[in-house]
């Protein structure tokens, strides 16, 4: 199903939860709503479900106005953060429930319901647990029951609220992969809420980054990660160095480091922020490359990577290099090295319009 959200506003007790949010979701797309708590992502999901209603704005399902349609009549599959399984019913009855209570023309026979439930339980790999009660299941199993229950009514869209939030890291990763496969198989339009950027980038076709009730950026995981539209997106997705800089006539000055910022060629003199990912920061020995001089302050070995904390002027920044590169450089605390950002992005303090930089002259080969 195609979803069109138009200029949705929502306040809770005077506090704006959503401010002028518009978003189009394509048929069969799996979209992640990503943001910190209080960013409005859950409010938006609940408005899509019909569990909340916007103060103004519209929600269209396949072009038809669904703004004020109750969740009862919306045919959405909703998976709750804490599963909300019916504790007094078996797994089978939980999954069958949406079908057994149905009255009127859409009603299925007992056999049809049984077949569908058994099929769903096979799909979520819980075939042997049909007669168990929710209290007898692990967190991951409960989550899959919740998913099967939501899918049983053959919803037009599947909505998931922090689907893996309450699970431990290993189960989380497993279910993530599994949700992705399930989506590829069923081709159902899906929206899930998460505050975990790795989860969003890993599972979704498209990621919508939200902050303070607004959409900061919507794009594919690659777009979001490689070209963040705003400083918020930069900081929220992955580790990043944010450095004070001055921009003048298309050149950015970060301490002693001078970088081209061609998009700001017209800017006379402005304060800005430069964002550099730790793995985009290249290190070389003094006299062996380009860049600015920085001091090694700390070195920590993180499995295959080495994180180097550096001091550039008065600003602290982090670089991530490979173990091999670390060995070649023979880094020691207090040592002077040259640093050069393979990629950096600048935002003016006043207007967050960015530019991306890739300098062909920089030595790139020794990156991770």
């Amino acid at each position: 199903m195609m979803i069109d959200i138009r200029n949705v506003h929502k306040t809770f007790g005077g506090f704006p939860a959503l401010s002028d949010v518009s978003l189009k979701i394509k048929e069969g797309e799996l979209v992640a709503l990503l943001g910190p708590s209080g960013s409005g992502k859950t409010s938006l999901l609940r408005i899509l479900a019909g569990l909340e209603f916007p103060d103004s704005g519209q929600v269209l399902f396949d072009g038809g106005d669904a703004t004020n349609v109750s969740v009862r009549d919306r045919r959405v599959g909703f998976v709750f953060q804490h599963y909300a399984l019916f504790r007094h019913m078996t797994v089978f009855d939980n999954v069958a429930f949406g079908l057994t209570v149905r009255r009127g023309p859409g009603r299925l026979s007992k056999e049809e319901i049984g077949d569908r439930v058994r099929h769903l339980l096979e799909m979520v790999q819980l075939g042997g647990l049909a007669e168990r009660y929710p209290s007898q299941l692990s967190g991951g199993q409960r989550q899959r029951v919740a998913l099967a229950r939501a899918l049983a009514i053959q919803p037009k869209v599947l909505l998931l609220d922090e689907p893996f939030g309450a699970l431990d890291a290993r189960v989380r990763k497993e279910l993530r992969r599994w949700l992705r496969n399930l989506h590829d198989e069923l081709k159902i339009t899906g929206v899930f809420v998460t505050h975990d950027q790795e989860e969003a980038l890993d599972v979704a076709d498209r990621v919508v980054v939200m902050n303070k009730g607004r959409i900061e950026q919507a794009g594919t995981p690659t777009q979001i990660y490689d070209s963040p539209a705003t400083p918020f997106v930069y900081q929220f997705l992955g580790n990043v160095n944010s450095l004070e800089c001055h921009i003048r006539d298309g050149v950015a000055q970060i301490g002693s480091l001078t970088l081209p910022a061609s998009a700001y060629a017209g800017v006379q003199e402005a304060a800005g922020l430069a964002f550099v990912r730790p793995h985009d920061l290249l290190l070389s020995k003094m006299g062996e490359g380009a860049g600015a001089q920085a001091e090694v302050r700390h070195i920590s070995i993180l499995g295959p990577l080495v994180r180097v904390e550096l001091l550039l002027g008065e600003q602290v920044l982090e670089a991530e290099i490979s173990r091999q590169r670390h060995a070649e450089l023979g880094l020691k605390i207090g040592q002077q090295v040259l640093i050069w950002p393979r990629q950096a992005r600048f935002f003016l303090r006043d207007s967050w319009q960015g530019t991306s930089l890739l300098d062909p002259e920089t030595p790139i080969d020794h990156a991770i």
Partner: protein
Amino acid sequence: MNLIDPDLMVKSIPFLLKGAGYTVELSLGGMIFGLAFGFVIALMRLSRRKLLRGIARTYVSFIRGTPLLVQLFVIYYGLAQFGLRLDPIPSALIGLSLNVAGYTGEILRAAIASIDKGQWEAAKALGLSWPQTMRLVIMPQAARVALPPLGNSFISLVKDTSLAATIQVPELFRQAQLITARTFQIFTMYFTAAVLYWIISTALSWVQERLERRASAHIRAD
């Protein structure tokens, strides 16, 4: 003179049992009507309408804040003054039901409110109407929460039915009083009545325990 007169005890049993019959009837009737009305009170307390909430809260406060004995007198003797003459048994049944409703209303309200909001939303998302959700999802779970305090209410009710003796209901305690008046075996009669109350309450507690155990078989804290 013996403390207990076994002869009289045995001879009085048929009369006392007849009284015990009324005691059980009043208890069951009071509980059934009291629960039904208590459910209405609970729904009013949980209502979105302020007026309904206010009415229910005032009612509960009034019932809990006044003695049952006085409530029974108002219904039996008080209403008669305005020509509404009710027989003793209907008066007692009405009085006990209204009283029990005040207590079960609070118990049911708390039990329904203890069910997570997610259960309502999950049911709604599956297409259930409000009555369906109440009947199939909320009440089966709320019942487990409510059962222990409802059981206590019921045991209290069994004992409270003895107050109906004061409005001429020939229940267990009243029968004991009548026999005492004729035989002057005060201790024997009241002690025998006490033992019968004890047997009735114990039997009912046992039933309540079985019900609780069955109801909570699959519910574990999680």
